[in-house]
């Protein structure tokens, strides 16, 4: 998992923010985040809306400025998205879409977008079981490293399917 130092400190800062109500430390952390990681961290954060965790830039570009979704973009793999989602669920966020959406197998498509609720609460058992089983399913399929040579066209096809499958859930709003 290409979890660089950046995203570990980002997780810590994010965790601190969500616990404090609007007070000094929160603003302090937010400004630190903005200054240090502005270009790297393509992440916008507004309270009270659900959050899309994705490594698909088509999803990010399309919905980054959209009013009722927060975006958490990860420059990483399908698994990095699953791991980030799991960490969030451990913190009390709830899963809104199934991480194994679409019939594309975890060792085929490199892209995955998942929606989680923004309102933190007690650990959600169903979300936990689903995300843990999804990670195990990712591990199971990736025992076989498929040596697929993706052309630019195929990469875009995978991005499109991930986007359209996500939108079949987004239109729920």
């Amino acid at each position, binding site marked *: 998992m290409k979890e660089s130092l950046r995203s570990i400190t980002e997780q810590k800062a994010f965790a601190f923010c969500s616990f404090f109500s609007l007070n000094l430390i929160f603003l302090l952390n937010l400004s630190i985040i903005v200054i240090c990681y502005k270009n790297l961290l393509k992440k916008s954060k507004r309270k009270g809306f659900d959050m899309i965790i994705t490594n698909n830039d088509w999803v990010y570009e399309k919905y980054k400025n959209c009013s009722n979704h927060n975006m958490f973009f990860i420059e990483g793999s399908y698994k990095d998205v699953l791991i980030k989602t799991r960490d969030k669920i*451990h913190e009390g966020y709830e899963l809104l879409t199934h991480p194994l959406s679409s019939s594309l197998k975890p060792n085929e498509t490199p892209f995955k977008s998942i929606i989680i609720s923004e309102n933190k609460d007690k650990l959600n058992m169903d979300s936990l079981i689903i995300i843990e089983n999804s990670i195990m399913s990712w591990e199971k399929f990736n025992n076989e490293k498929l040596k697929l040579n993706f052309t630019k066209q195929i990469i875009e096809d995978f991005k499109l399917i991930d986007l359209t499958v996500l939108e079949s859930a987004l239109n729920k709003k």
Partner: protein
Amino acid sequence: MIKVVQYINQFFANVGGEEMAHIPAEVRTEIVGPGLAFQQAFKDEAKIVATIVCGDSYFNENLEEAKKTILEMIKEYNPDLFIAGPAFNAGRYGVACATIAAEVKEQLNIPVLTGMYKENPGADMFKNKVYIVSTKNSAVGMKDAVKKMAPLALKLAKGEKILSSAEEGYLPNGIRVNFFEKERGSKRAVNMLLSKLQDKEFETEFPMPDFDRVEPNKAVKDITKAKIALVTSGGIVPKGNPDHIESSSASKFGKYDIDGVMDLTEETYETAHGGYDPVYANLDADRVLPVDILREFEQQGKIGSLHRYFYTTVGNGTAVKSSKAFAAEFSKELKQDGIDAVILTST
């Protein structure tokens, strides 16, 4: 000609019943008891060159010694195939058959086969390690057992491809193998539903995992005198993970000395667990393994003492991998060290 060695107990060797279960292992060169039926089934493809007869009590009560001596006996004949039982529903005999079969397979690397009733304790313990043919629950099923065991034994000896459990008659061992049924899936589903509706027995084609129960132990009489041990599946290890415990589906557990350690700090302890965000545990491992508080309670006399060692492994994933073997092993050690109670923490 395939050379076969068979293992049977005192009962099937007509030595006697429970009263003779103590007899140590001995070798017979003539064919004994069930061996006759097997030899008939083998015709001239295989020959039973020796039969090991061993009392069930002897085997289970002198496990290491029995295993060693029996292995020596078998080595002498350097057989191409080893058959144990069938044990039907005889518990200790079943465990003995499965244990020795697994041992022979591991140590001598020759094909092995045993057979027993699916509810025999030996089946549950070893069905994922050796092929165990599913037999009826009493010796009445001998003919049927030999009819299933003999052909599968020959296939194993000749190294032929082993098909699915449904076709070869061995107990499902967790390895899913495809095959073609006589009826299509939808017809099988209708038949299965009809049996289920009429409360008749039916066999699911994919068993869901289930868990057995263990009764709770008596409470601790006086906690202020009790020797408490800490165990965790949260993967807390000394800094640098000296024993390299894997971050998921760990293949080992750690036993670490905390004599004189009053608090777990960022410099001294960390987590090896890959199943959760490690940041918080790395900052202060007490958040997973409460050594600081237990030391406090120890000084205040709220507990007798905190055991010198703590045991740790990584139980990763929602379907907690039963690290049965680890726990069985270190529980024995805890018992020997006179531990009165255990606090097990999980993430």
